[in-house]
């Protein structure tokens, strides 16, 4: 079991460090969002009495970069199926649970690195975390987002057979999850039904947890911020592991 976890994890890291192009291109979108929203809404946010918008925005953009990297890494199951490597792992004498865990740990590690890169870039444009001692906890939140959404991507990819559904997943699942997570704007003023959805969205708690640890503002409180993402990881991973174990290649 451990050997399977190790192989699938290290494979993900090797591929990540090897394809710089992919690393850079997946930074492009979050950075564009960061700059566009900061310049666009920063002054309005300040006038409305919200304070420094960059402080509010950076945790959201970090969450965004992790979210997308994680979902796409999870969905690489489809590529592996098409190019045959999935079969090689599925006939090996290791439990499929080990393969699944290795895949999501690998995806979460890679996603964490993308988040850290965004964090470092944000430092250069003037973002300052409130407390250095809370940084490790912030990195834990980043890793949790990575785990949750790699498991989510893997679960979806386990029931899909080709990449055609990819844009649908992005547009109708990932984007709404992102917009309704409070990553870009505060959840306080939302109309009732939309607010309700955000309360069920685990990403809202992840983003809130990042804000609690990086800029010391929290909507839900740090206990809820830790509890709901971990509970969601447990749930989604169980479903994902089940669906993954049923794949016939």
């Amino acid at each position, binding site marked *: 079991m451990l*050997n*399977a976890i*190790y*192989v699938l994890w290290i*494979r993900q890291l*090797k*591929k990540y460090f*090897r*394809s710089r192009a992919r690393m850079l291109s997946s930074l492009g979108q979050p950075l564009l969002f960061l700059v566009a929203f900061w310049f666009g809404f920063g002054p309005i946010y300040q006038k409305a009495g919200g304070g420094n918008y960059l402080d509010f925005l950076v945790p959201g953009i970090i969450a965004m970069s992790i979210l997308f990297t994680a979902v796409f890494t999870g969905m690489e199951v489809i590529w*592996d199926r098409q*190019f*045959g*490597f999935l*079969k*090689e*792992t*599925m*006939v*090996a*004498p*290791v*439990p499929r649970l080990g393969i699944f865990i290795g895949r999501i740990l690998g995806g979460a590690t890679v996603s964490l690195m993308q988040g850290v890169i965004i964090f470092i870039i944000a430092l250069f444009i003037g973002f300052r975390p409130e407390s250095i001692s809370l940084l490790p906890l912030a990195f834990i939140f980043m890793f949790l987002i990575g785990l949750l959404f790699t498991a989510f991507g893997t679960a979806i990819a386990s*029931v899909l*057979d*080709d990449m055609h559904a990819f844009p649908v997943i992005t547009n109708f699942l990932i984007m709404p999850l992102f917009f309704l997570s409070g990553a870009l704007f505060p959840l306080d003023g939302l109309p009732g039904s939309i607010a309700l959805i955000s309360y069920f969205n685990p990403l809202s708690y992840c983003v809130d947890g990042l804000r609690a640890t990086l800029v010391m503002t929290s909507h839900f409180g740090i206990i809820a911020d830790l509890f709901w993402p971990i509970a969601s990881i447990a749930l989604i991973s169980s479903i994902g592991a089940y669906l993954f174990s049923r794949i*016939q*290649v």
Partner: protein
Amino acid sequence: MEKTKADIIKVTNLVKRFNGFTAVDNISFSVKKSEIFAFLGPNGAGKTTTIRILTTLLKQTDGSAFVNGYDVSKDKNNVRKSLGIVFQDPSLDDDLTAYENMEFHGILYSVQSNIRKPRIEQLLRFVGLWERKDDLVKKYSGGMKRRLEIARSLIHHPKIMFLDEPTIGLDPQTRKNIWDYLKKLNKKEGMTIFFTTHYIEEAEKVADTVAIIDNGSIIQHGTPLKLKKETRSSSLEDAFLKLTGRSIREEEGSRLENMRLRRRVWR
């Protein structure tokens, strides 16, 4: 002497249906330990489906199959440990180097590092890829990938080797090389070899036993000599054509393929 050898693969009344289409129709056969067994048949006859069941990738609809004494539907892990597999289509990771593909396989099959390292070198040298071991696999030609896959499947010294059209797209030199090596392993280590091929003369040259499958049923089973005698043919290829007919199996093949494709789209 041969008669006393144990069956290492035993298939009894095996059936596989896909949405009502019967791909494997109640077949029974056995393969003796240390035998080189050729599984022949036209396109869409049920060869690959049978292999997928025997290698635990697919669950049978009915019947039973034992590999190395283990039930393929119940004792999957022990079956998997006994097998080396070269699939019909590639199963390498193109974004990794040849060496990494080999090493990951070794780790997955729990081959200890002090055995793994020299064995990988020996195998890569044998298939002539050692000089290019640090190249990404995506830079390899089709023939090189094939050689790498065969080398990879041997790292853990499997008891039984499954090869689904292993020599397709290879030049005669490489084919001969690979078969020489496989035969050596078969003699030295007693490794059983189960393979499919469309090169019937290849099967005639290397196989101890041949089974011919058509439309999901086994229509002949025996030594190449016996098959030739019974059909009064001069070559196994002639015997094969007499037994399976000369009509091209495009329809049979594509019916199954189409159905598989449709499943792929809709599932």
